[in-house]
């Protein structure tokens, strides 16, 4: 069954929820965008497996909240039934002085339909360029 318009909108809303949560330091919402067995695999944090481990990791990053914004763009969504992939860009920009581009990267996401809606089963973040921050 191809993805419906509702599915595509829900998947985009999941991405938006994640971006707002991470930028606001909302540890619970950020970790709850993942399935219980979700995997966060980034070039900056390594591989973090399970929602609980992601919650603990997110808590260590929460003090940096309110200094950055995650801009995602150009999502290509493919899938059917209860599984989909999203490939999209990330522009991570510092919103406090000195207001810089911190990172440009690409998310390769796998999402799954769960009883509570579409959630990340795996997020991979590959960094193309970044500065030390």
């Amino acid at each position, binding site marked *: 069954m191809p993805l419906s*318009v509702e599915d*595509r909108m829900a998947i985009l809303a999941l991405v938006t929820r994640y971006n707002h949560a991470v930028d606001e330091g909302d540890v619970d919402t950020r970790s709850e965008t993942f399935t219980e067995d979700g995997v966060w695999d980034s070039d900056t944090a390594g591989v973090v497996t399970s929602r609980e481990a992601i919650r603990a990791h997110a808590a260590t990053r929460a003090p940096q909240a309110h200094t950055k914004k995650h*801009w995602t*763009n*150009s*999502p*290509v*969504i493919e899938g059917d039934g209860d599984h989909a992939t999203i*490939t*999209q*860009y990330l*522009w991570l920009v510092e919103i406090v002085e000195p207001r*810089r*581009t*911190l*990172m*440009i990267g690409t998310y390769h996401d796998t999402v799954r339909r769960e009883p509570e809606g579409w959630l990340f089963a795996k997020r991979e973040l590959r960094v*193309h*360029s*970044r*500065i030390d921050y």
Partner: protein
Amino acid sequence: MCYRRPAAGGPRVSLSVDDRLEILDLAARYNHAVDSGDHEGAAALFTEDGAIEATATGTIAGPAAIADYIGSRPDGWQRRRHFNNNAIIEGVPGDEDAATLAMYIMVLSRRETVLPRLLGRYEDELRRVDGEWRFRRRRIIADADAASGRRAEG
């Protein structure tokens, strides 16, 4: 043939939600193709008579010329990321297989990580061929304040 975008307040033709999503998808696929150096893939998103039009380069017409144009600087393209925003998608009166897309573009360079390399906008004419939306004409207009010393490379 050149499609004129309706004036503000003038008649507008609504496209279906499916068409609008497919057109946004087309724009995203273009970005991913050019940024990963897949110039053949990017050219395949144009109609057979499709063209790119940019201030610095003039008109580049046909998939082969488009592929050559995008492939002519593979190192440069692969260091960039094309971001889009503020898409306005409209139908064309009397032609259900035509649409226009007006959209902002920001090109980030992977080397120069401080400022966007290009800010501007696309004015695209789209055509549905065998059920798939394609670019018929992609016009790239660099914003004046970002254009100094920069080529408008879409």
